[in-house]
């Protein structure tokens, strides 16, 4: 038990050191901007399809599931407003972040892990390149910037899914639906939900890179790193979400 606790504390310490190293390296001269843009394409654009499909399904499903309860209370007209708040504030940012943790986090963990065990990171270092700056700083920055963008896309497509969901059993015009959605959403709903996704992205990037960069025990370690990257970053997404809700509440943005 005490051994496990010691392991967890050590891991937290190592992740903190790794994060501080990221900030130290990122603000130093000679940023790898071209590589960062390349990573934005690979990590962001290549995840867009998956995020759009899941966003659409979430919007549709949440609308279909919420309808019977509102009908029971005779509040069917509130459906667009209610689903838009739940989707934009909470469901879409968290689900999108979890999908990114699964796709991007595991991808980074496995890629850097295999580079580590096949000495590619060492080869980079002897080629006059700081591998931390080239591999870690670029990926973490790219994920931090791409996750909020993906969430915005997913928000839009989930609300479109909601529109189709409302029209499955009822009937609402395109203009009325969007008028109701925009009426019920305020900046206090949108801004905190976007801001927290930067932190989700950062957590996914830093954990994926940490796990990959510190991979040990050969090819077996690569699988373990990819797996641990998903588990830890998913857990962090929930913890950060909890903290974000508390801060939003304290600032009376709810």
């Amino acid at each position, binding site marked *: 038990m005490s051994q496990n606790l010691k392991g967890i504390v050590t891991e937290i310490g190592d992740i903190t050191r790794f994060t501080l190293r990221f900030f130290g390296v990122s603000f130093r001269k000679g940023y790898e901007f071209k590589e960062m843009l390349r990573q934005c394409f690979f990590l962001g654009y290549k995840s867009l399809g998956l995020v759009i499909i899941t966003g659409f399904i979430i919007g549709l499903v949440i609308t279909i599931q919420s309808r019977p309860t509102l009908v029971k209370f005779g509040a069917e007209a509130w459906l667009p407003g209610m689903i838009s708040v739940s989707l934009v504030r909470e469901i879409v940012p968290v689900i999108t972040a979890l999908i990114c943790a699964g796709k991007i986090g595991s991808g980074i963990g496995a890629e850097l892990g295999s580079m580590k065990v096949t000495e590619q990171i060492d080869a980079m270092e002897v080629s006059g*390149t700081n591998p931390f700056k080239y591999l870690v700083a670029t990926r973490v920055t790219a994920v931090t910037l791409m996750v909020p963008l993906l969430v915005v896309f997913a928000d839009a497509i989930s609300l479109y899914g909601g529109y189709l969901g409302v029209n499955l059993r009822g009937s609402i015009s395109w203009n009325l639906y969007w008028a109701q959605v925009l009426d019920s959403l305020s900046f206090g709903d949108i801004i905190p939900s976007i801001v927290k996704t930067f932190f989700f992205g950062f957590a996914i990037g830093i954990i994926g890179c940490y796990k990959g960069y510190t991979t040990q025990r050969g090819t077996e370690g690569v699988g373990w790193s990819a797996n641990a990257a998903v588990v830890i970053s998913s857990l962090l997404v929930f913890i950060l979400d909890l903290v974000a809700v508390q801060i939003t509440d304290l600032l009376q943005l709810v």
Partner: protein
Amino acid sequence: MNLQNQHIQDTVNSDIVVRLEKVCKSFGNNQVLRDFSMTLEKGQNIVILGRSGSGKSVLIKCIIGLIKPDSGVIHVLQRNISGIGLHEIDKVRSRIGFLFQSNALYDSMTVRENLEFPLRRHRRQMEEKEVNLLVEKALANVGLPNTADMMPSELSGGMRKRIALARTIILKPEIILYDEPTTGLDPITAREISDLIVELGRKYQTSSIIISHDMNCVKRVAEKIIMLIDGRCYEEGTYEQLRQSGDEAVRKFFEP
């Protein structure tokens, strides 16, 4: 002679390109290098011979600054690499080539991009035309001129080794460190790689430290062999001298 005087001596005697003085390195309780000392002269090919896990790879990673020794001094091209900053060590590294045991080709890049990588990092001012020319020349030198647009995954083990060798020589290094260059290759390919090491050494007038268990390779490339046993320089000499050694621990390596 103190270390500063020794450094001055090396600078005067510029034939010495690598000098290790009482290098120690341990991992936990496992001490892999104990007061290890050696010198490499200009144009010389030295083979480090020792059992698996005896610290041979650790030794050459110390020489290129990938691993920091616990104590001792490592002079490479008249620079004490344990006491210099990142920028300075990059300058020294640009004059050293390192052939990794696993080849360490970047999986996500084509052969051309793999070869261009060190050029773009160390020779930032170089024009595109010149880069292309150097890539073509390096590929021709290893006998694979038409592979530039292939991915490493499309190449056989021997071809990967040759490409890794091409990447190592592209900056025309003064010293090349080879980490088990023939491991995992069939005897014919292993012989070709050994011959290529000798040929490239002559062509570019490089000094080399080669780590190998492959006695055929050792016989072909070694001008001098250093036996690394118990973390120390146990014995050194030519292939024939060590083959006829009276020491059982040394002779065992040369038994068929």
